């Protein structure tokens, strides 16, 4: 059986997928993020507060990973405030 050749004039984009991070990458990312946050705020943090910060960043990264698993199109726009800005009211 033969098939017609595909229409060469149509160039479909590749299916880009947000690459998942493995456990080691996540741990490294979290450690770096804690270090960056501590750069600005660290001098005020007690060990307990720094532990809370670390836990919150781990949760934040986990949530970001969940968001990265939801496929989006380029045209998917954000759900910001619905009213038109600068509408003269």
């Amino acid at each position, binding site marked *: 059986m033969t098939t017609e050749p595909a229409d060469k004039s149509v160039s479909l984009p590749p299916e880009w997928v947000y690459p998942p991070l493995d456990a080691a990458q996540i741990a490294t990312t979290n450690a770096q993020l804690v270090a960056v946050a501590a750069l600005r705020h660290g001098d005020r943090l007690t060990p307990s507060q720094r532990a809370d910060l670390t836990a919150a960043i781990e949760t*934040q990264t986990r949530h970001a990973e969940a968001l990265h698993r939801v496929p989006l199109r380029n045209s998917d726009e954000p759900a910001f405030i619905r009213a038109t800005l600068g509408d003269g009211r």
Partner: protein
Amino acid sequence: MIAADLAFATIPELGAALRSNTVSSVELARLFLERLERDGRRLNAVVTLTPEIALREAALADAERQGGLDRGPLHGIPYGMKDIVAAAGAPTTWGAAPFRDQVFAQEATATRKLRDAGAVLVAKLATVEIAGGMAYKNPNAAFTGPTANPWDEGRWTSGSSSGPGAAVAAGAVPFAIGSDTSGSILYPAAFTGISGLRATYGRVSRAGAMTLCWTLDRLGPMARTAEDCGLVLEAIAGPDPADHASLREPYRYAVGRTRREGGFRFAVIDGCCEGVEPEVQRNFEASLALLEQIGTLDTVELPDFPYGALISTIVAAEAYAAHDEFIAAGGLASLTSPLSAGARLAASVLPAHDYIRAQRIRHRLAQAFTSLAGGYDALLAPSLGVVATGLHDDFELGLPRAMGRRPLNLAGVLTGSPTISIINGFGEGGLPTGIQFAGAPFAENAILDAATALQGMTDWHRRRPAGLVPG
């Protein structure tokens, strides 16, 4: 009508008593001020009593009524305002020690609208500090202390509209205004056994209220019945140039409208009882049996989205941004909750593209949810999976189950659609359980009518906490 009956009366019942001269507005104001002083303060539901404002507004309402002016169903009715909303002549503390002396010269639009409707401000009511937006891990997260539940003072009201929930449930105000960013009206309404309405995003102006999250914040009524919520919403809804997210569409609840009593189309969220306490499930199923008498009942799947990740990411980014200077200057350490100082700083390294990604996913969720909700008058689920948790318990002990695995509440939060919670029975320890009715955007009247119909078939909303002193 004796004082205790007045304290637990609905808004139409109080209005009838006022119009028949059974009681005056000044007498009502004094009654509720006394109950706030006695019960409200003991429960940590009160931040500031406003007797001067109350007695002045009540005397004016009495004089207007005697002169033939009727401002409508709220005329002469006392109320309490969550203390993140500004009122002239009283501090607006946001529940937080660093802001306990904060006074705004200009009152909030909601406060002004209620005064225009003749309502009488008797108190600024407790809130979890910064409306809970700086992270907290147990109920002791306000300079006023944890707010106790009138049904069991060893239990919590939930938050962040803790004071409004406790005060309404205790018969210390007929209604209150709460705020909701991710469940702060719905959860306290469920834990305290009252009715709480989160109207469509933009329905109520937030001008003069503390900002936690621009794209999520809503103000709304907390009251004894769904009907009361509708009457209050009608008074505070409407466009406002000071809040450009406010809707232009007018809202009418009582004026020129006949309430529906049947022919409803309901849908239960599939799996909404997974993991909930047995009494919560039992009461929910009993409610469904009653709702089947006034409508059809389908089962539907909630659209599959990472609800927890979405709400957490959006709240973190917006709450941090809204309080940027306070955080940068080290203000978090001055809050009551020890969790705030470290945990909220995580948002300082939250990438902008992840926040925007959450908002893009939210847009798709809104399209899917609106399509689903538009086919029904109300989507149904338990308001919370548990009854009120301990006043001193860390949340790990209660909230994971409370959030549920099928979070209809979060779908309503993220899509800006209306939801009401009403009491539907009692569970472990004689504590209230709730059922939520979620509608499509702008469809407040459908869920209010359905909830009112269920309240017409039950008397749960008529029960009073036994531990309170009569009178």
